[in-house]
C-alpha cells in the first residue's frame, strides 16, 4: 500500500512509472478524508491545490526531472506561512489570516517538487506539549485516541504516525518535534539552531525556534532535511555553512562512536523507561559504539531557564498581534487601548496569555536582572556544560519523554506539570544543539522514544547513528492499529 512505502520506495515507484504523483496524492487525500476526523490532526486540507501540484510534479518528471522528493506529498505544521492558504498557528488570532507569502521551508520543499496536502493542527502559537491548546481542538494520538499526541507539533506527529502523509514538517522550541515524535512512534529531527531558515515561520521564541521534520525513519528524515537546510539571506540567524549529503552518511560504521550517558537524565528515571534506553545501548554497543558516563551539572535548571527565556521572547514576538494590520480584531473598539486589549484578549487562548504575561513580568523594570538576565547566565552555563561533554563524547543519549502519552485533559490544570514534560528536550534548544527522537519500544502499549543530541552541525552523525539503530531494530516500522489499510 502506498502509505506504507518509504520516501525512497515511493521515489523508485515513480521513476519506474508504476505510479504517479496524482495517484499517490489521491491516495493520501482519501486517507485524510477517512481517518483525520477521528484524529483532528489537520486544520486546513488543500485538496485542489495538492492535485494541481501533483500534476505539475508529474509533468516535471515527464520532462526528465528527477530528485528524491519530486511528487512526494507532505503536510506542513500550520506555523509555516503558505501563500494563499490560511496560516492559523492554531489560534483564533490568525483564524482569518491568509498568508501572503511562502516560508523559506515551504519554498524549498515546493522547489524540490513536494505536494502539500494540508496544514497540521498544533498547540496555539507553538506553546504546549500536548496539542490541547489549539483553537481548533485537541489532536488525538492514533495509538489511543483518548491520549495526547504530544505538542506543539501534535498534528504533524499524529499525521505522520497515522500515515496521512509520508512526512510532515514541525518546529521545535523546547521539544515540540522530538516529544510528539516520541509519543506517536515516529522519528523527529530538530536541527542545529541556524541550520534551517526561520523566514516565514511564525515566531514564538526567536533564539530557540527551529524547523524540522517528522517521518517514519531517519533515512526519510535525511532526504527531507537535505532539502530544508541551508543558508537563507532572509533569516538573519541563518548560518552560512554547506549542507552535507545526509543520505550518503547514513550507512557509515559506528565503530569507535562514543555515546555519553547523561547522569542527570538517568537520575530518577522511571524504571521501564530506563530499561528501554539500556536495551538501545546494547544495540549501539553491538554496532561498535562505546558508552561513557558524563554529567551536565546545570542541566536540572533547564526547565526554569526556558520558562523565563521563552515567555520573555514570546511576549515580544506576539506584540505584533494588535488587531490593527491583520489577525483578529474585536468588535466596536471604543479607543485604541480597547482595540489592543480586547483583540488580544479574545484572539489568544489561556496558555498564550499566561506565557505573554510571564514574559512581560520577567522583562519588567525591577525584575529584568533577577529573572531574564539571570536566566541568560544559566543558559550559558548549560551550554558550556554541553560543550564540555562533547569534548569527551560524540553524541549524548537519553529518553525523550518522562512518560508515554498521557490522557487528554490529565494535565491541563497545572501549567508546571505540563512544562515538566519537556525536561529532557529543553537543554538542546537552550544550547542550539541538534537532536533526534527515535522510536525505541513501548510502555503500556504506547510508543516511547530515545533521544540523541549532538554538537552543533552534527546532523550527519546523528542521522547515521539513528539510521544504524533502525537497521538493527524494528520499532520505527510499527504503526498504530487501525491505520494499516
Amino acid at each position, binding site marked *: 500500500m502506498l502509505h506504507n512505502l518509504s520516501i525512497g520506495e515511493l521515489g523508485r515507484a515513480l521513476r519506474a512509472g508504476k505510479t504517479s504523483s496524482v495517484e499517490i496524492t489521491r491516495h493520501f487525500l482519501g486517507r485524510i478524508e477517512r481517518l483525520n476526523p477521528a484524529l483532528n490532526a489537520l486544520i486546513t486540507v488543500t485538496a485542489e491545490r495538492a492535485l494541481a501540484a501533483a500534476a505539475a510534479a508529474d509533468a516535471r518528471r515527464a520532462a526528465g526531472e528527477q530528485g528524491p522528493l519530486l511528487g512526494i506529498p507532505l503536510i506542513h505544521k500550520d506555523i509555516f506561512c503558505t501563500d494563499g492558504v490560511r496560516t492559523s498557528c492554531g489560534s483564533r488570532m490568525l483564524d482569518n489570516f491568509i498568508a*501572503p507569502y511562502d516560508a523559506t521551508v515551504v519554498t524549498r520543499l515546493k522547489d524540490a517538487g513536494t505536494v502539500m496536502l494540508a496544514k497540521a493542527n498544533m498547540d496555539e502559537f507553538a506553546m504546549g506539549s500536548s496539542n490541547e491548546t489549539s483553537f481548533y481542538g485537541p489532536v488525538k494520538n492514533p495509538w489511543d485516541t483518548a491520549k495526547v499526541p504530544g505538542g506543539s507539533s501534535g498534528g504533524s506527529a499524529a499525521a505522520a504516525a497515522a500515515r496521512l502523509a509520508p512526512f510532515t514538517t514541525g518546529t521545535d522550541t523546547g521539544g515540540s518535534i522530538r516529544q510528539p515524535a516520541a509519543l506517536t512512534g515516529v522519528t523527529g529531527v530538530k536541527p542545529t539552531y541556524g541550520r534551517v531558515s526561520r523566514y516565514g515561520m511564525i515566531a514564538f521564541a526567536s533564539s530557540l525556534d527551529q524547523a524540522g521534520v517528522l517521518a517514519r525513519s531517519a533515512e526519510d528524515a535525511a532526504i527531507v532535511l537535505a532539502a530544508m537546510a541551508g543558508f537563507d539571506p532572509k533569516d538573519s540567524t541563518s548560518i552560512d555553512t554547506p549542507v552535507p549529503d545526509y543520505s550518503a552518511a547514513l550507512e557509515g560504521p559506528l565503530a569507535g562512536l562514543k555515546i555519553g550517558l547523561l547522569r542527570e537524565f538517568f537520575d530518577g528515571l522511571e524504571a521501564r523507561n530506563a530499561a528501554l534506553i539500556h536495551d538501545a545501548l546494547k544495540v549501539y554497543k553491538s554496532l561498535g559504539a562505546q558508552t561513557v558516563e558524563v554529567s551536565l551539572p546545570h542541566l536540572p*535548571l533547564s526547565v*526554569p531557564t526556558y520558562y523565563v527565556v521563552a515567555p520573555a521572547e514570546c511576549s515580544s514576538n506576539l506584540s505584533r498581534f494588535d488587531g490593527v494590520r491583520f489577525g483578529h480584531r474585536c468588535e466596536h473598539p471604543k*479607543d485604541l487601548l480597547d482595540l489592543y486589549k480586547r483583540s488580544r484578549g479574545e484572539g489568544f487562548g489561556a496558555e498564550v*496569555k499566561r506565557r505573554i504575561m*510571564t514574559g*512581560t513580568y520577567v522583562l519588567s523594570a525591577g525584575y529584568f536582572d533577577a529573572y531574564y538576565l539571570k536566566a541568560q547566565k544559566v543558559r550559558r552555563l548549560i551550554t558550556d556544560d554541553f560543550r564540555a561533554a562533547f569534548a569527551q563524547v560524540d553524541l549524548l543519549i537519553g529518553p525523550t519523554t518522562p512518560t508515554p502519552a498521557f490522557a487528554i485533559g490529565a494535565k491541563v490544570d497545572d501549567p*508546571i506539570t505540563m512544562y515538566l514534560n519537556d525536561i529532557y528536550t529543553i537543554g538542546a534548544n537552550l544550547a542550539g544543539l541538534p537532536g533526534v527522537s527515535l522510536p525505541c519500544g513501548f510502555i503500556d502499549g504506547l510508543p516511547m522514544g530515545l533521544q540523541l543530541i549532538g554538537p552543533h552541525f552534527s546532523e550527519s552523525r546523528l542521522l547515521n547513528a539513528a539510521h544504524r539503530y533502525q537497521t538493527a531494530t524494528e520499532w520505527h516500522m510499527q504503526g498504530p492499529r487501525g491505520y494499516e489499510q
Partner: protein
Amino acid sequence: MNLTRQDVEKIAHLARLNITEQEMPVYVTSLSSIVNFVDELSRAETGAVLPMAHPLDAQHQRLRADAVTESDNREKYQANAPAVQAGLYIVPRVIE
C-alpha cells in the same frame, strides 16, 4: 513569591491583554505558580558569567548592503487588514 491581583492587572495592562473578572483569579494562581517555579534560578551560582542571548553569540550579526531589495506589495499585504482606506490602516481615533 506569590503575585497579587494588582500585580497581574499591571502585567496585563503592560501586555495589552484584557483579562476578565472571571479569569483573573485563575491567572493570579497560575502566574504565581510559574514565578515560584522559576525562582529556583535565584539559587544558581552565576558569578561573573556573561548572559547568553542566543546560541550564535560567538558569531557577528550578518550585515547586508544598504540597497533596496523589496518591491511594493502593499495591496497584497493589506488584504488581511480588518479596516483599510486609501492604503492606510483604520483604527479608533487616537488624538482628540
